[in-house]
């Protein structure tokens, strides 16, 4: 299994571990990742305006490169996934954006949204399968009570992201169970952490993150896992309760027995 891989800005810096744990785990699972050459930042938020293309071009370049290699494009950061998947949907379905982006980029062959965009979790679920993943676990996380924190970007708008049931998702819970831990279900797992708003309106983010953490704690979670560096930051910084929030790839690496090797790097 060979995929094109788009890491994104934060995974190169503040969230390097999110990336490292994933790469180590991917090796164990036989997932081959080829990093997109010269990838550029996705912009962090999907540009909603339907009348400009400049903010979408970096995603289109990455998508086209994967297409030329004949590979699916894998993402790990929730924000990158959200942006690239939606831009891809525009390239498939919005004629105006497709035409203008192609006119500007002048690829050998126009890009029409051919590339399949997958989140790493989707590979675990759909390509590897959680049953198979379970077999590969050498260090089951038995007894741990883990809450999945999805946030907003992976799930919405479900019409386009088509990742999971946006109001009652199960993919990360299944992932947790495959690793041998107990999945704690709490209703705030798909609520927003505040995102970029924490920069200028910290109190708003605090209120939201406290709701999330209190709910998870109330239902017995001992830690939260997430796929998004921004979620990780906000929920950790902006909540009163000290509930650890870590990347899902960390517990994956732990269960697969490669965590120490990464930490030692």
């Amino acid at each position, binding site marked *: 299994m060979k995929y094109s891989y788009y890491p*994104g*800005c*934060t995974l190169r*810096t*503040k*969230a390097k571990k999110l990336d490292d744990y994933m790469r180590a785990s991917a090796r164990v699972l036989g997932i081959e990742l080829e990093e997109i050459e010269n990838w550029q*930042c996705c*912009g*962090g*938020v*999907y*540009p*909603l*305006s*339907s*009348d400009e293309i400049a*903010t979408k071009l970096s995603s289109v370049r990455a998508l086209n490169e994967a297409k030329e290699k004949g590979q699916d494009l894998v993402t790990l*950061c929730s*924000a990158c996934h959200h942006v690239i998947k939606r831009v891809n949907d525009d390239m498939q379905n919005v004629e105006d954006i497709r035409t203008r982006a192609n006119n500007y980029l002048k690829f050998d062959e126009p890009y029409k949204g051919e590339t399949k965009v997958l989140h790493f979790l989707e590979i675990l679920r759909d390509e590897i399968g959680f049953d198979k993943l379970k077999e590969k676990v050498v260090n089951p996380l038995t007894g741990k009570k883990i809450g999945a924190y999805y946030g*907003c970007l992976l*799930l*919405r*708008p*479900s019409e386009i992201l088509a990742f999971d049931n*946006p*109001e009652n998702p199960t993919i990360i819970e299944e992932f947790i169970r495959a690793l041998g831990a107990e999945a704690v279900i709490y209703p705030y797992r798909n*609520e*927003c952490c*505040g*995102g*970029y*708003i*924490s*920069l*200028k*309106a910290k109190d*708003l983010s605090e209120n*939201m993150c406290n709701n999330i953490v209190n709910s998870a704690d109330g239902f017995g979670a001992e830690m939260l896992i997430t796929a998004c*560096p*921004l979620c*990780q*930051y906000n929920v*950790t*910084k902006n909540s009163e309760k000290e509930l650890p929030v870590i990347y899902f790839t960390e517990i994956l690496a732990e269960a697969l027995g490669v965590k120490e090797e990464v930490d030692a790097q």
Partner: protein
Amino acid sequence: MSHGNKNQAAMVKEISGTNPLKCMKCGKCSASCPAFDKMDIKPHQFVSYVVNEDVESLAKCESLWVCLSCFACVERCPRDVKPGKIVDAARQIVVRQKGGNYLSANEIPELIDEDLPQQLLVSAFRKFRR
């Protein structure tokens, strides 16, 4: 009723790609919005400003800068109106005008800490500035 700027209202409709007339004023967006309390114009009211061609008031409101683009309103809107897209279109109109930036580079140092991920700054820049 409408003394406002027709062009700007049309522009909001075009940028957002939504039809505000589909709204039935159910309020599910406002019930879902995590930033509701910070908003001066509430999500269910966005459409009225566009219909009444009063984009100017919308452009001056605080709501533009506290919307999180979490898409809860977009996901749950039963009428396919997508209020989040309307507020984003109004925000676009503001930041595209000169001096419409909500965030200046000078403010940044005092706002950040060492754990802050790049993603946050990138997103904030895209949302708050041209």
